[in-house]
């Protein structure tokens, strides 16, 4: 079930009504409702993989309790590694097995040997990377004695499977979400209205920006040999807004939906395209994943302790792993590596925390220096997205070679220029709104708060009109593939 489908538009009000009008007085019932709804939501995609989700939940719940009850460190270690191995094992089989098998065959072929790798004909269970990471953070936190094991199976299951975050995050932490699930929730008008606003803005990002940009990004990338450098560059820019609109739009809908149920999820995006350097970009892009890697990989590896070189090594490791997390393809690894290279100067010269606050806080416009910094950071990001979007490394290099040629000075030419122009205008409108609202959690959170309510409602109706009128051809959320 997609967030931007009519099915979800029916599903959400039903669950909302049952949640606040039928089960509101009983927390246990409320959590059971959330769990059943979440499993139904997931089963709408493919009910067979529901068993995998339940198995993963039971595994982490059980090993969590066993770790808590362990009488000695060895016993605790056993349950910890059992959980880690099985979790990563599932991820490895479903997500990476074919990649490793094919890569192994290619490597062997370099020595003149032919092998036919046994590949699995399975589809990637949607959300496996996300719920596995939920489970991993939970068992690691128990192992490190940061939290106690959750004894209530329903509560723990809701933490893993809560439908707004189930298939594409944000990647939650037990320390943040579990206490909210265990606590009685009361309806909060401000929070619920805020949630609706965030859903509306998420739908705009996904349906108007991402889906329209996708049409051109797909056309240009899929036929890259036919286009000039300027067109390919434009295609890369379209993809940059597609992936931002798509993923941050999804996250907004997820966060807004959760707010309707009185639950706050972790923020996932904070206007990343207004970043002044790559380090800031990574503090603002897919925040829940970046912080996951920071807490569960970077810091255990030593983090920034021990001088420059361990820091450089650890940074390379988290970016490579982050790239690989996105998918079993060398293009993602190259994307991660490129971002590691981008961030390296600031790591070496200790300037990675130079831009901690949002750009031009309290001002209408950024300074010339900030405009230059934002432009440069965006340009570097666009270049990196070429690797992310390309089907293969040779394709990415072909595109970059063309973009580096004289043909980049030519006027872009492709089918559907008029629609592309409309998409660009919509994107500019979107950037302006994002700029205006950059000091909030999401762009329209406080937009028009000083206006009369009727004017504010007209603004929301205009957004609704844009969503219906300028809807692009429906595309599956990109992060469903991860």
């Amino acid at each position, binding site marked *: 079930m997609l967030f931007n*489908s*009519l099915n979800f538009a029916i599903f959400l009000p039903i669950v909302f009504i049952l949640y*606040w009008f039928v089960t509101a007085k009983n927390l246990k019932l409320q959590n059971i409702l959330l769990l059943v709804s979440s499993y139904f939501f997931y089963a709408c995609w493919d009910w067979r993989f529901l068993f995998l989700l339940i198995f993963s939940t039971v595994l982490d719940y059980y090993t969590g309790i066993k770790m808590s009850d362990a009488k000695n460190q060895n016993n605790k270690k056993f349950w910890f590694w059992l959980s880690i191995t099985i979790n990563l094992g599932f991820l490895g089989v479903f997500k990476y097995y074919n990649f490793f098998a094919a890569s192994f065959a290619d490597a062997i072929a370099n020595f003149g040997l032919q092998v036919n790798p046994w590949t699995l004909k399975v589809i990637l269970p949607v959300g496996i990377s996300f719920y596995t990471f939920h489970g991993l953070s939970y068992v690691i936190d128990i192992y490190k004695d940061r939290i106690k094991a959750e004894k209530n199976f329903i509560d723990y299951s809701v933490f893993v499977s809560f439908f707004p975050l189930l298939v594409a995050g944000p990647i939650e932490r037990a320390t943040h979400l579990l206490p909210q699930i265990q606590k009685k929730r009361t*309806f909060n*008008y401000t929070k*619920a*209205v805020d949630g*609706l606003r965030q859903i509306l803005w998420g739908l705009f990002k996904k349906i108007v920006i991402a889906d329209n940009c996708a049409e051109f990004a797909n056309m240009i990338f899929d036929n890259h040999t036919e286009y000039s450098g300027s067109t390919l560059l434009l295609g890369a820019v379209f993809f940059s807004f597609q992936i931002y609109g798509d993923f941050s739009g999804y996250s907004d809908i997820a966060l807004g939906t959760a707010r309707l149920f009185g639950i706050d999820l972790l923020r996932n995006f904070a206007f990343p395209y207004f970043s002044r350097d790559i380090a800031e970009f990574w503090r603002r892009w897919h925040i829940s994943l970046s912080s996951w890697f920071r807490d569960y990989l970077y810091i255990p590896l030593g983090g920034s302790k021990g001088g420059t070189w361990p820091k450089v090594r650890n940074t390379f490791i988290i970016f490579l792993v982050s790239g690989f997390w996105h998918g079993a393809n060398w293009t993602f690894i190259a994307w991660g590596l490129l971002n590691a290279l981008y961030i390296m100067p600031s790591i070496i010269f200790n300037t990675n925390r130079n831009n901690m606050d949002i750009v031009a806080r309290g001002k209408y416009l950024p300074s010339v220096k900030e405009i230059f910094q934002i432009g440069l950071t965006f340009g570097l990001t666009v270049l990196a997205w070429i690797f992310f979007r390309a089907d293969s490394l040779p394709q990415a290099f072909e595109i970059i070679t063309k973009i580096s040629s004289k043909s980049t000075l030519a006027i872009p030419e492709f089918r559907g220029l008029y629609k592309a122009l409309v998409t660009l205008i919509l994107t500019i409108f979107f950037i302006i709104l994002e700029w205006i609202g950059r000091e909030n959690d999401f762009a329209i959170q406080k937009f028009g708060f000083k206006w009369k309510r009727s004017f504010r*409602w007209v603004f*929301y*109706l205009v957004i*609704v*009109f844009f969503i*219906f*009128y300028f*809807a692009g*051809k*429906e595309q599956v959320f990109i992060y469903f593939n991860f």
Partner: protein
Amino acid sequence: MKKFSKEISVFLFIIATIVVVDVFLQKTLLFKDENVKLPKDYSVLILGHSHPANAYDTNFIKNTINMGTAGEAYMYTYYKAKKVIDNNPQIKNIYVEFTNNQIDKGMDNWIWDDIHLQYRIKDCGVLLDYEAIQLLYEKNPTGFINAFSKSLFDNLRRLFINKKGMVERGAMGKFIPCDAVYVKKTSPDRPKSRKIINYDLEISEYNILYLQKIVKYCQNKDIEVCLIRSPMHKSYDVSYTEYKFKEILRTKFKNIQWLDNKDFPIPDKGFQDSEHLNSYGAKIYSQYFNKQIN
């Protein structure tokens, strides 16, 4: 919660009201009965897709309205025709273009793919009944919702234009003159639809079903209905569909008059491509057709 429920209800009510009022205005102002009335002497209707739109020059055919529209599936033709027939009891004869490509499974795309929906819903979306809406929603929900919302706004402009006599002025389909001349190729042409069809000739049940509905509706209204195939260039290869095409004619339209003008002699310079006549060809053919029916 009370305040929240109230505000949500009001907001949704406003949206619903905008939609309902818009549809109502389209139904009552744009497609009001008076607008689709024809002068009393018009008694012949020509229906179908781009072939009739290019082939029947009504300047040479007496008392005839050409409602041919490029890319129009029979489902939309059916609802348009119903509206016009209901308001014009003087119509006695209807000619529906039936060509080989219309049996192909690919015609389903003409009913519900994104691009066709955009045009068709805008042109005649408010004429559709529940059954048609259900079909479109089932086959392409997002495409339908998107096309429907677009039509709501696009047609607002049309509401303020005088639509009286919209049928005779061609707002529901018309003769489209074309001056391009077909450059004959050495190898036989393939029909365009071949790109999207299955070679084992899967049939578009929906397209045929709605053609049957047109026929039945006309019969119920005592209108003489005739299926017709307008001229095609000799390089246009129908051989691989002809058998099935004729079988459908025999089985599903067995008592219906069939007028096959496919091989009517039109010189090469009378075609704009292998399937469609140009203005020159249309003039020759329309003069002939006029004699044929009168």
